[in-house]
């Protein structure tokens, strides 16, 4: 089972590597930005459409 920790977009917290942020590039019709959403390292990423193997 793929987990978030195996993804290129996962950036673990220094103080607790079991938690981190999923950081993604988004381009909407008006602007481009980077977004971050808190996730846990062991979260199941099997169905994540933006999963990219590290």
């Amino acid at each position, binding site marked *: 089972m793929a987990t978030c920790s195996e993804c290129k977009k996962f*950036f673990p917290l220094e103080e607790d590597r079991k938690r981190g*942020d999923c*950081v993604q*590039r*988004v381009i*909407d019709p008006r*602007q481009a*930005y980077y*977004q971050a959403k808190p996730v846990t390292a062991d979260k199941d990423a099997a169905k994540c459409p933006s999963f990219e193997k590290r």
Partner: protein
Amino acid sequence: MAATAETVKELEKKQEWWWAAEKKRSRRLDYLRKAMWKKGAIGGLYPAGLQIDLERPVMQTEKAKELESSADPYVIKFAKMLAHVLDNKTIFITDRSQLVGYLGSAPNMITWDPTLAAILNHEVFNDPDSLPQPLDESLKVIRDVTNYWGGKSDLDKILPHMDLGDVMKVLSGAIGWGVPLGRGGYSGKDYEYIMTGVRAFEDIIEELDRRIDEADARSHRFDASREISDLIDKINNWEAMKITLEAGIRHARRYARLARIIAENFESDAVRREELVRVAETCERVPAKPPRTLQESLQYDLFIQLFSRNEAIEGAWPARPDFYHGPYYERDVNIRKTLTREEALDLVGEFLIRAAEVSQYKPKWAREGLQGIEGTWVWTLGGVKKDGSDACNGMTIALLQAARLVRVANPTFAFRWHPKVSDEVMRECFECIRQGLGYPSMRNDPVLVANAMHWHGHPIEEARLWVHQACMSPSPATKHGFQPMRMANATANCAKIIEYVFTSGYDHVVNLQIGAETPPVETLETYEQFFDAWVTQMKTIFTILVRPVNRARILAPKLTPRPFLSAVSERSVESGLDVLEPSISRGNAWITAFTWVENIDSLAAVKKLVFEEKKYTMAELKEALLNNWEGREEMRLDFVRNAPKWGNDDDYVDSIMLDCLKAASEFSHEIKCPSGNNWPILPENVSGNIHYANIVGALPNGRRLGDALYDGGISPGPGLDKKGPTAVLKSCSKIDHVTNGRAFLLNQRLSPTQLSGEKGYQLWKTYMKTWADLGIDHVQFNCVSDETLRSAQRDPEKYQEVIVRVAGYSAHFVDISRKTQDNIIQRTVQGL
């Protein structure tokens, strides 16, 4: 931007200010301005592309469920819910931006707070055009969230403690709007506590810890009293405040981390990498510690505003950005020279954009009443310092210049004019007006300082620190002076006063007895009796609107607390009481008087045509009004054309205005807010004149049901001020702008051709001198030609950026309804 000076000049000559601005602003500002998602509703509906954000309501609901079995008191549970959102919501950093923070999980998202009112949640459910796809999944989420909060929302909690008769009349939508909620309305802030650079969140946390320890020790001594018992509530409040401040610091640091991740992993441009590191350093510094630079100061302010809006729906943005950010601008630009003027302008322009994109889901009536904008972000500029000296600074000018570059409709500015304002600053104000922004509105500072002292007893040093709490009303940003919540339902649709005189208080539009049962109008034999009936209806309507606000304010500290706003308010940090507690506030309430002048013109028409000339009987008039003037067009035109109208320096009708204001202001001293202070009236409209068009029946000024009402405040009816701008000012000057009410909105249209060049400035300056000498407290201008506005109606795509002054706010012309557009075009263009 690489634009030739010639091109810009040409565009300016053609008065195509929006295209000229596009060419004059920096590449960064141009990108950020175009990147912005406009949030203002059009015709009550959100523009295409915007979506209701479901992330936050799901988080709030999850946390609320988790806390159900907790022994925490509500205020702490609420603080934990807020912290949970700040710790977990999706954050983002837009390319080229230097300031960060947004309420939603993406730039096009409108946040929805399900904890406020079940009726709001049902509106979300029935707003499928704004829901994320797939619709079925969104509806399922909304159903779960809405079901959970049914019976638990703030409104559900306070309603059993209210007079339901009053509430029903308010919610009928006929005489006012809004709901009485402590977390919904216009929130003032204690800027003197939080924005002077003396302290920031860590300092307050230290203070809270000390107070908690002291109270805890005291409450466990060999002692028992009411005071000791109350310490439990205070400790809980302090704990809740601390939770929100700590969450705020963590939230900022999430942005710092994201900025560093982008800089270290994704960004290839060295200059942008440096910017991102600066963003990270800024968010590591503020709001934990006081700002040191302009960027930190702006970011600090932005965080405070966003945290406060995470806690409540705030329909206004009281602020004084030049006063509080000015010292940092001065230090960075003029003393240390760490920023060039252009770099500072980039930051200031971006600050306006960040504010412009803030959005919270609001009910449809609010969207209709605030066409084209999200809320009334009226920022206060200029004015005086505590000691009475001129407060204008480099930041005042930077804000006025940045506004012309980014041309957002919201925030707008209101400028506190006083006799010591420099010519340089006045020219900057004029440029904004001439370039069609519709702002700044001009406020007469000496008059309004005196007014604040008269109505609410603010000491002069505090009165001098006033900011606009919403469109118009001044409120000092001080410990006891600021008002933490002004609930919008103390907003009177005043045209109903005269309407109810003819119906004995029965509202034929909503089929409800709302007003007083005054005698049948045809039995009134004299004008004096008729006027007495008007006074009775006025008192009845004002009372119905004010009572629920008072009640909700008394209930608020326990049922709908605001721990974050308390945490940034000296009086709450000091006392341990919630910021909404009336006993620690001096009080600064006001009744917004929409559709006021219709009363004056109607009373004048009845006095002249019915009582004096006896051309018509009262029974005839009553019947004509009940039938919406049908079959009586000639009679209607008589009431339009042959009765005196306000705004023409005609003592006949102007004296009626004074009689009405005298009656209202006397009553304002009788009704009290829970802090024991007065409820003065404040005539103004937002888009209320259009919103109420189908709610107000036919009136004796010749208006039919469905016709737009006047544009508000003490502005004459559109096209009815026929004797020129000086006559308008003279009529307005007969009002005592200190003692007759809290403030009086005056719209004027000026000709852009006449205002061109140096001659235009001198003409305007002379006009402003007359205005100031006459002691009028407010004036705002539309300065866009009929030709441009009509072209924009024909070809809206080409005129997307044309801005107009609607009432106490500006909006993009294409974003307001056709009826409002026509109403603005109908306003008299005054030749100076």
